[in-house]
């Protein structure tokens, strides 16, 4: 049919559209008519408009009477076959309702926990990514080796900023500082709150970090000394709906701070704060304090007090910067030329800090990369467990499908068609599973957020990619779980299957067994995890720390009544509920690190030790044991100036015996201006007590009398009511002496327990996911048991007739499964042991892995498995043999 020009024909794609929907009987007539019309119109009104009208017509014809009908047997195409697959899939799903339920519910749990975990993992991995310059921001930290221990410290000295600004690669330097020693209050009108998350920083902060501004000008926000920037939740807390910019807040009852900006709450950053205040404010406050001799931290090279972040000009200069930093840092930027200790300064990339930094004295509690990966792995394993259920149950019920497969083959189906058919089925099941899973996810997510203190949500619409990925993921899971069954089922020989009873092959049973073993290995390891984490937690909470932490309260604003402390103490002295009041170091908190030198030895022999300022009541308050020498005493007039006590760890550190230590003299440089030279003498040795967390060994420590620090009170109450009346009477005294500061306190034992929050969370997470993993695995086992029982109905009948008891029949059925569970238990022991050991290595004090842990985990899995299997087997065993054998 040559001789037609392109211009004679209507645009091909429009015709294709017509052909797409139009049924074949009408196609020629319609296409021909439209073609004729088109040619006529082309002559009359031109090709363009004719084409448009042609297109309009193809749309107008899109009406039910032209549509291809459903039962058009003359045209076999992919779409029709697919529809058939779907229909058959739906039918077989409905036919085996229980199996479908198990598959769908299992997959739903698997998919829900997988998405949740992935949301968590992605959230953890995206820390600091909101900063557009994240790749150019680095934090300077240093590592040194002291008494055989390598330590990386997150804080550096304040004046270092000005050294870094001299480097050619550096564009900006921002420091952060938190005054942890002194709780602050903020006041607006009659709203007075104690705030412990105020961060001091440099005005350049907003040129380095990208915070989301709600109001205010980032360029000038912190340039004035008396300014403060609030996060949104804090703005609401103090000002409600008002715009706080332009208002003032009263800081520590003395400084009026102008609110210059409000920024959105910062998420996904290790730099966590509620308020930002210029460092200059703290500097001036300290310089103006009379007892400080004009202390200026901008000139203090001895105190590492600031977290220092540098913005490099571009990322490529990092190696040069590192090199210069390392070279200059070794002798502490020229200030310690003869030091024997090397200070290795380095730059941490900002995005790495949250998960990879293990520096001490960090801004907040950081995450743990291996934990994030572990969670990711658990998520994938749970999903795999759910897929295994599908594989096992589908291959197990293959006998029921054998005839269908045989017939399809006889009717001319190729193997590839059957493979597609079964994959369609599994994709259908996963899609249903996903639907249910997304509902589950919405239910579980709020609880998950509560446990993990996160604000995760799934941005289905905000980031369309997420929805797309979930969809693709579902299909992928469908393929994954449908892959093996489809290959297996499509292999059936039609002759065999149609001849009669088709027994599934032996090899397939073996595979099923090993998959069940795999499932239970995972569940078992998780159970071991639950037990280990829980036991370690109990151990940490219950461990004798070497001091008495009961009935001690710590006052938040104790430092504010410095000059009236004596008055306060006297007032409490007569209170029968108060045992002792102590000012100074509080157990459970970090301590200062101070360099001490034994008198007469050279500078390099100085040793860094924890320095704890205490008052006379310290030993009594924590019920400490003195192993040599004596306690501080008011009778010795010189004690207040130069007496110190050591703990046994410090004594060991110098290689002395306890008695040798007595009378040794030390010198150190310190004081509130960090310049005064002190000469001190050891008067006593304290038994080791673990004041710090149990992650670490007991610090070698020096205790010295001083009159500053937090105020703690040891109460003496025999019951709760008495405790509260005592606290009330203390509050009354407090309000008399210091009405402008709120009376706020915390219990020491609670504060110490809070240290292990991270472990508690981990424990809850593992519990949750172990529960899900076991649930899914048991669902699978339940399904398999049902099949076995169905297959063995007659066998059971015969056994009963021959006199078997119900118990013995249950045993026969359950035995096969129990063997699998026991095998997986045995395999999981070394795996669980290895993982538990790895985790416990983080703690200086940990439980030993007793066989009890593994035995109980084994008992749990066996019991759970028996429960899953027995209901079906008992049901089968109780059937009347007359019924089961009737047709024989």
């Amino acid at each position: 049919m040559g001789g037609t020009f392109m211009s004679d024909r209507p645009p091909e794609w429009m015709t294709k559209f017509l052909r797409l929907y139009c049924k074949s009987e009408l196609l020629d007539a319609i296409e021909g008519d439209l073609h004729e019309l088109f040619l006529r119109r082309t002559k009359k009104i031109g090709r363009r408009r004719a084409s448009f009208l042609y297109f309009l017509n193809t749309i107008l014809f899109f009406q039910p009477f032209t549509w291809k009908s459903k039962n058009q047997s003359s045209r076999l195409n992919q779409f029709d076959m697919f529809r058939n697959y779907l229909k058959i899939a739906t039918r077989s799903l409905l036919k085996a309702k229980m199996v479908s339920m198990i598959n769908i519910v299992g997959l739903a749990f698997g998919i829900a926990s997988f998405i949740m975990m992935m949301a968590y993992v992605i959230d953890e991995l995206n820390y600091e990514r909101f900063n557009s310059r994240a790749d150019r921001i680095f934090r300077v930290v240093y590592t040194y080796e002291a008494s055989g221990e390598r330590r990386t410290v997150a804080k550096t000295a304040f004046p270092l900023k000005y050294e870094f600004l001299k480097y050619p690669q550096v564009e900006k330097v921002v420091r952060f500082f938190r005054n942890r020693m002194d709780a602050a209050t903020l006041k607006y009108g009659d709203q007075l709150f104690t705030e412990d998350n105020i961060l001091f920083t440099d005005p350049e902060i907003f040129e380095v970090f990208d915070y989301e501004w709600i109001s205010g000008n980032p360029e000038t926000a912190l340039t004035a000394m008396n300014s403060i920037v609030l996060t949104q939740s804090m703005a609401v807390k103090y000002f409600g709906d008002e715009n706080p910019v332009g208002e003032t807040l009263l800081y520590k009852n003395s400084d009026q701070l102008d609110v210059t900006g409000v920024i959105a709450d910062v998420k996904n950053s290790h730099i966590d704060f509620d308020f930002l205040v210029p460092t200059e404010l703290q500097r001036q406050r300290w310089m103006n304090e009379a007892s400080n001799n004009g202390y200026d931290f901008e000139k203090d090279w001895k105190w590492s007090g600031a977290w220092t972040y540098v913005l490099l000009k571009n990322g490529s200069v990092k190696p040069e910067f590192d090199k210069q930093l390392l070279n200059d840092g070794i002798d502490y930027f020229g200030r310690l030329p003869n030091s024997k200790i090397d200070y290795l300064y380095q730059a941490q990339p900002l995005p790495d800090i949250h998960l990879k930094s293990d520096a001490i004295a960090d801004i907040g509690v950081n995450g743990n990369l291996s934990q994030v990966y572990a969670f990711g792995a658990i998520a994938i394993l749970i999903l795999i467990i759910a897929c295994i259920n599908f594989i096992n149950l589908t291959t197990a019920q293959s006998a029921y499908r054998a005839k269908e497969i045989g017939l399809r083959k006889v009717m001319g189906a190729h193997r590839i068609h059957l493979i597609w058919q079964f994959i369609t089925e599994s994709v259908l099941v996963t899609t249903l599973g996903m639907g249910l899973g997304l509902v589950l996810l919405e239910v579980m997510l709020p609880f998950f957020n509560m446990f993990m203190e996160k604000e995760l949500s799934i941005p289905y619409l905000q980031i369309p990619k997420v929805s797309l990925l979930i969809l693709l993921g579902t299909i992928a899971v469908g393929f994954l779980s449908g892959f093996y069954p489809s290959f297996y089922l499509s292999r059936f020989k039609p002759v065999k299957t149609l001849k009669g009873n088709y027994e599934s092959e032996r090899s397939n049973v073996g595979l099923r067994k090993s998959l069940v073993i795999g499932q239970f290995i995972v569940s078992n390891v998780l159970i071991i995890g639950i037990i280990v984490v829980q036991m370690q937690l109990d151990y940490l909470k219950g461990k004798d720390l070497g001091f008495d932490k009961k009935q001690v309260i710590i006052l938040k604003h104790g430092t504010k009544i410095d000059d009236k402390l004596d008055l306060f103490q006297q007032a409490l002295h007569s209170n029968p509920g108060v045992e002792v009041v102590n000012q100074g170091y509080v157990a459970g908190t970090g301590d200062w690190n101070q360099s001490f030198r034994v008198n007469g030895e050279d500078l390099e022999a100085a040793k860094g030790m924890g320095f704890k300022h205490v008052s006379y009541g310290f030993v009594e308050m924590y019920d400490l044991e003195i192993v040599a020498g004596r306690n501080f005493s008011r009778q010795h007039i010189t004690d207040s100036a130069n007496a110190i006590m050591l703990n046994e760890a410090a004594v060991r550190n110098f290689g002395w015996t306890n008695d040798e230590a007595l009378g040794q003299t030390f010198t150190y440089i310190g004081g509130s201006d960090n310049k005064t030279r002190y000469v001190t003498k050891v008067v006593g040795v304290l038994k080791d007590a673990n004041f710090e967390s149990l992650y670490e060994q007991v610090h070698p420590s020096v205790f010295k009398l001083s009159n500053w620090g937090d105020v703690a009170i040891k109460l003496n109450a025999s019951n709760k009511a008495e405790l509260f009346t005592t606290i009330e009477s203390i509050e009354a005294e407090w309000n008399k002496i210091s009405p402008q500061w709120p009376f706020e306190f915390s219990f020491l034992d609670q504060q110490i327990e809070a240290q292990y929050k991270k472990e508690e969370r981990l424990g809850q997470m593992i519990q949750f996911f172990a529960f899900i993993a076991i649930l899914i695995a048991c669902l699978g086992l339940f399904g398999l048991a049902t099949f076995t029982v169905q297959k063995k109905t007659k066998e059971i009948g015969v056994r009963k007739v021959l006199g078997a008891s119900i118990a013995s029949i249950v045993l026969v059925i359950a035995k096969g499964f129990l063997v699998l569970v026991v095998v997986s238990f045995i395999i999981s022991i070394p795996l669980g042991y290895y993982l538990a050991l790895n985790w416990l290595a983080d703690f200086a004090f940990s439980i030993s892995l007793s066989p009890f842990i593994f035995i109980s985990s084994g008992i749990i899995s066996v019991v759970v498995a028996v429960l899953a299997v027995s209901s079906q087997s008992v049901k089968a065993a109780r059937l009347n043999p007359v019924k089961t054998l009737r047709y024989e």
Partner: protein
Amino acid sequence: MKGTYLGEFEELVLLTVGILYDDAYGLSITDELEKRTKRHVTISSVHKALVRLEKKGFLQSEMGGATEQRGGRKKKLYALTASGKNALGRSMELRTEMWEAVPKVVWEGPS
């Protein structure tokens, strides 16, 4: 009786098939209808009516007459069936009856 009911448009299409006799297909029917009724007629509505009328048994069709003009596509040629002719006749009769039932005064006006 829904099956044999003849709508106005359907009646016109049926008549046009009669008029065109041996060249009644979608486009020619549309043209003829437009010419006679002086209304715009869309080709899809004509096809739709044709399919329905064939289903009702008023029309029969055969394929034929592929031309270069039609891009090599055959025409679907329609012809009236006996029941189609009957239906037209009945409709004509009905009208005549009803015409005659209208009193003369309606046409001529009260004198």
